[in-house]
């Protein structure tokens, strides 16, 4: 019963936060809904024995990424009057139909597959704890090549962000 509540309460908070993200009109409220979703997901990760991932989720997502979002919201201003007029006719109706198909398909697969599509693995009885030691042991041995590649990705992204934000005209006036 406790296990059930530990799933139900964070899961409802995740969904409430997600609905705030897509339906709130003020961008700051959307960002706060996203924070609610991310923190509730971190709680779910802890119940799934992924403690280190939960910690990183709090630090990187709820901390760094959301701060970046809020910075940009404050920078470009909160424009509340988003056009609610459909620019493509019947867009919302069409998307709702697609959504209904998508959601039923995904849940059907989630409930019925029972992981039978992968016979190499079998559900195990013992639990593993996602400690930093265990994760680092795998990350720096089996996953070392993706790890190096992803560091290049981060450098490229940083360079790209600087190049995009660099205002050439404004620079020339100052020099």
């Amino acid at each position, binding site marked *: 019963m406790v296990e059930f509540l530990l799933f139900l309460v964070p899961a409802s908070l995740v969904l409430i936060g997600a609905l705030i993200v897509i339906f709130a009109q003020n*961008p700051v409220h959307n960002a706060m809904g996203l924070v609610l979703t991310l923190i509730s997901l971190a709680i779910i990760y802890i119940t799934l024995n992924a403690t280190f991932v939960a910690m990183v989720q709090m630090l990187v997502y709820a901390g*760094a990424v959301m701060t970046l979002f809020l910075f940009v919201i404050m920078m470009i201003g909160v424009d509340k009057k*988003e*056009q609610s007029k459909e620019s493509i006719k019947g*867009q919302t109706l069409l998307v709702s139909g697609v959504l209904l198909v998508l959601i039923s398909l995904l849940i059907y697969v989630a409930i019925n597959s029972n992981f039978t599509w992968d016979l190499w*693995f079998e559900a195990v*009885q013992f639990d593993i704890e996602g400690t930093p030691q265990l994760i680092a042991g795998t990350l720096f041995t089996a996953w070392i090549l993706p790890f190096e590649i992803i560091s290049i990705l981060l450098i490229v992204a940083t360079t790209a962000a600087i190049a995009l934000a660099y205002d050439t005209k404004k620079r020339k006036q100052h020099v």
Partner: protein
Amino acid sequence: MFEVTTDWYLSLAAVLFSIGFFGMMIRRNALIMFMCIELMLNAVNLTFIAASKHFGTIDGQVAVFFVLVVAAAEVVVGLAIIVSIFRKQSSASVDVLNLSRG
């Protein structure tokens, strides 16, 4: 009924992904579309963690780190693009973007 199995987590991830997809389709503010992408990425992360628990391997949790880094890089570049568009158009709505020329 009260036993929480892997299916429950996968179903939650499916619903979360669908909500993110729906928001991506109906909203026109580029910032909020980015938040919806974050929702979808988090749904995928949840499936990775649930599978990691189900199979008793750590690889799913390692994969989450890569998704996290890609998400962070995507947000950095995406927000820089939004800011530089906002300087020219003074709007974050994707409906007003009809020029490739800067």
